[in-house]
């Protein structure tokens, strides 16, 4: 348990960060372009999907989650699921006639 206390270990090369940045910029471009097309109600779905993809990159690479223990990944899953419950369950009230 204490062996890891002093070294994070994994060093992410600069180039990888640049590559991730390019991906993020590309996704940003896609989402702006898509918003210009009249997709109606699907615009928000697409926008959130792209935002989620960008978040995945930021979390896993910039924030090193990919290189961390399963414990951290479980933690963040718990946090996301909790938030998902809060927002979807609120919509039990709003999605149906009051």
């Amino acid at each position, binding site marked *: 348990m204490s062996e890891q206390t002093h070294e994070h270990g994994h060093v992410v090369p600069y180039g990888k960060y640049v590559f991730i940045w390019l991906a993020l910029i590309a996704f940003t471009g896609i989402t702006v372009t898509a918003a210009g097309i009249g997709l109606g109600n699907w615009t928000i779905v697409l926008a959130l999907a792209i935002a989620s993809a960008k978040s995945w990159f930021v979390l896993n690479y910039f924030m090193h989650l990919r290189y961390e223990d399963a414990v951290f990944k479980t933690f963040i899953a718990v946090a996301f699921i909790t938030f998902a419950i809060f927002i979807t369950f609120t919509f039990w*009230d709003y999605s149906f006639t*009051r």
Partner: protein
Amino acid sequence: MANVAMPADRAEPNYLEVTTNSHKGILGWLLSVDHKRIGLLYLYTMLAFFAVAVGFGFMIRLELLTPGKTVIDAQTYNQFFTLHGIIMIFLFIIPGLPAVFGNFFLPIMLGAKDVIFPRLNLLSWYLFIIGGLIAVSAWLMPGGSADTGWMFYVPYSLRTTTNVVPALLAAFVLGFSSILTGINFITTIHRMRAPGMTFFRMPLFVWSLYATAWVQVLATPIIGITLALVMIERALGVGIFDPSLGGDPVLYQHLFWIYSHPAVYIMILPAMGLVSEVIPVFARRTIFGYKFIAFSSLAIALFGSLVWAHHMFTAGMSDTAMFVFSFLTFFVSIPSAIKVFNWVSTLYKGSIQADPPLLYVLSFIFQFSIGGFTGLMLGALSTNIHLQDTSFVVAHFHYVMFGGTGFGIFAAMHYWFPKMFGRMYNLKVATAAWAVVTVGYNLLYFPLFISGYLGMPRRYYDYLPEFQPYHMVSTVGSWILILGLIVMFWNLWRGMRSGPKAPMNPWGGVTLEWTTQTPPIVENFREVPTVTTGPYDYSRYESAAKEGK
């Protein structure tokens, strides 16, 4: 389990005598990062706030002795029940067991010498004090203290001219204190367990603190942002919840209860953990169903996050939402019931020592069960329509929060004070006080179920004469209860100041705290213990008891 006995001639100075910083006297306490001292700082300040809130409760019950005005006017009455709720909930019941006994005993039960972030721990206490002072400060301002009730429902909380912002700010600051404690405990439990202590060798009190800490971390921010929004809306006129600007007051209620329902599990889980500690000791046998109890703590935390809108059945939600939340509410009772069955099974055919810690725990089981059953009655839609906003609800939540957690706190004091302070209190007086407290408590709250069922509304200053008999019994009950509490606290105070010195292990417990010096040394253990068995291994009780006593 390693038993490091401390012969008296090698006794080291304990944490009460030695500071970890370079300060002496009061600064040695106020700037201490020793988890044990911080636990005591919380204990003293929390009991002071508790006394104030009991005072408000006394006045509320006194006012309700007769219909119409008895001693105070209606506006003051509203302010009293608002502050009573705010102080009891945010300054006593929520921090209660985790901040005092969790801080003191979590590291010891894990075999560690402190929590992982000791300075953050002290910051949590300072936030607690600041929040508490802000809460009571409104009393001194023109306009007086808030009169909205502790729930601060909009739109009234946006319109009232009483001082709502200090109350909201206080709750926000206290929420931050709670979050930091939660972060500290989760990380400590993951990182500082002694060699050999796997998760399934941790005491059940630790499991309950773990589940509680997750709820503290994930649910509290919601109330933080919600109350911040009300503050911003009052101050800047931003349209968020104000119906005249298009806001939805029911959305406020959703956000409020998304935290405040899980908050009640923050309140009860540590108390259930405490019960799981006391019962094996006073039945002299290992707990029945350790893993079930451990997992049920996590289950309660999870299920408890799914049911918040059962507080809103009369608010105007969609039928679908009402069906879903009512249905899910029934599931929350299952893990709680599992705990109750396991506790009772542990007691059955055990070797029972009817000492004060167990007596309070027995009251807990009785009262929590009543609270739980009446919760189911409230969770059913058809009955909820009639019972919502009556004193039935008041009785229900006092049975779980006070009859449950409150008595859990009393049990914890009687169980752990000898270890914390090194002295014993008078067992006979403690037993007598317990009896008076239990009788007074039930006289105070049980009639409220009946009057509520018959239609007495909650928070009402005035009422129809037909309800008076119930109010009179209840008010007399409050006097008996307060009398019992005074004797209880006086007995503990006298014992801790000048009672006989406590042995290392007065009750015969086998968790790690009973192997430390009494009171503990600053670092808790002279050598880091190695754990080889589960936490309630009474097969070695005989040898542990002989060495300890």
